[in-house]
């Protein structure tokens, strides 16, 4: 039940893009076509889940025992940057087709604040799923990370679909490009507000 609450909350109620504003730059940057949006979402999903696992363990078994929590920011960003590099090298070797599909998006993910954001959130924020406020354990942190990145993918692909339609319409000149996209996102965020209070 608790896992269910985490999943619904992370995907819909506190959608990472539309309610928490993390990872907006790539969201606006690569959402012109559904195919690129899908590729980016896949890559983000993969990296967020993996990075959360590694940073959670590092925090738990390296930083906390030695009282080095203040190094979280530096340690996490280094871990994420090297992780992205390793993933890139490994993928190239074992699955060239997946590498082809995710290839160009992987280097961009280091500076995607959604990855660092989720990694920091799961080790610092207290959650209230199931009545009492508590920190997430490893299993819950992984479910949270996975559900959050699924929410990222859903919002991204939905928005790419809307944006493909926008491209074919006559829009007043000052609105062209980003402004009309932002106004569209605003409408989407308004729709997602309808989920609030569900969990």
């Amino acid at each position, binding site marked *: 039940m608790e896992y269910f609450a985490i999943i619904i909350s992370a995907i819909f109620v506190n959608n990472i893009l539309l309610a928490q504003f993390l990872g*907006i730059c790539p969201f*606006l940057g690569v959402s012109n076509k559904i195919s690129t949006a899908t590729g980016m979402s896949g890559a983000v999903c993969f990296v967020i889940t993996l990075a959360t696992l590694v940073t959670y363990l590092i925090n738990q078994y390296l930083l906390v025992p030695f009282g080095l929590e*203040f190094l979280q920011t*530096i340690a996490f960003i280094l871990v994420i940057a090297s992780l992205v590099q390793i993933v890139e090298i490994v993928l190239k070797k074992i699955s060239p087709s997946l590498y082809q599909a995710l290839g160009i998006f992987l280097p961009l993910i*280091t500076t995607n*604040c959604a990855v660092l954001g989720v990694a*920091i959130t799961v080790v610092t924020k207290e959650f209230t799923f199931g009545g009492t406020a508590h920190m997430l354990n490893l299993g819950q942190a992984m479910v949270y990370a996975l559900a959050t990145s699924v929410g990222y993918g859903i919002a991204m692909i939905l928005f790419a679909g809307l944006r493909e339609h926008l491209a074919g319409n006559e829009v007043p000149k*000052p609105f062209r490009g980003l402004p009309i996209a*932002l106004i569209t996102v605003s409408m989407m965020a308004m729709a997602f507000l309808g989920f609030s209070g569900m969990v």
Partner: protein
Amino acid sequence: MGKKMSLILDGFVKNNPTFVLVLGMCPTLATTTSAINGLEMGLATLFVLVLSNIAISLLAPIVPDKVHIPVYIVVIATFVTVLQLVMQAYTPGAYTTLGLFIPLIVVNCIVLGRAEAFANKNGVLDSALDGLGVGLGFTLSLTVIGIIREILGSGSVFGWKFIPGDGILAFVMAPGAFLVLGYLMVLFNKYLKK
């Protein structure tokens, strides 16, 4: 002197990080629920931007080209950690409100962007001024967005309430952030961009 001055002024309109370069959208949208939050976030970014620009302009000649991005990220992350400790000590209120978005300055594209585009090929003074200009431009944009959202959302400016009753709640919440930024960009495109 004119050249030094224009380094600062460029950050406001010509190189405005929010409306022209469209960088650092996450803190722009998330922390502008009120004017004071926007201002604080802008100043926090300004702090990191100026210091990292200075450090990187000094380090750039001795850093091997192959590893320059990781080195810059570590430099930026160090200053962000300094900022976190300073804010925890002197402005704990702001540190709590801005929360996650303080450590996330590390991945703010503006900071790394200025390091790559300016600080690594210019002198210390010019880089500091560039950081100051872009940082002030960012602070200004965030404060303006914050003022508008605070007026519409809660009928006040910098906490001074002049419209009685509840505001339009949506402007304090997520949709309002996107909407205000979208319309401000429209106005910027129409009147200020040449």
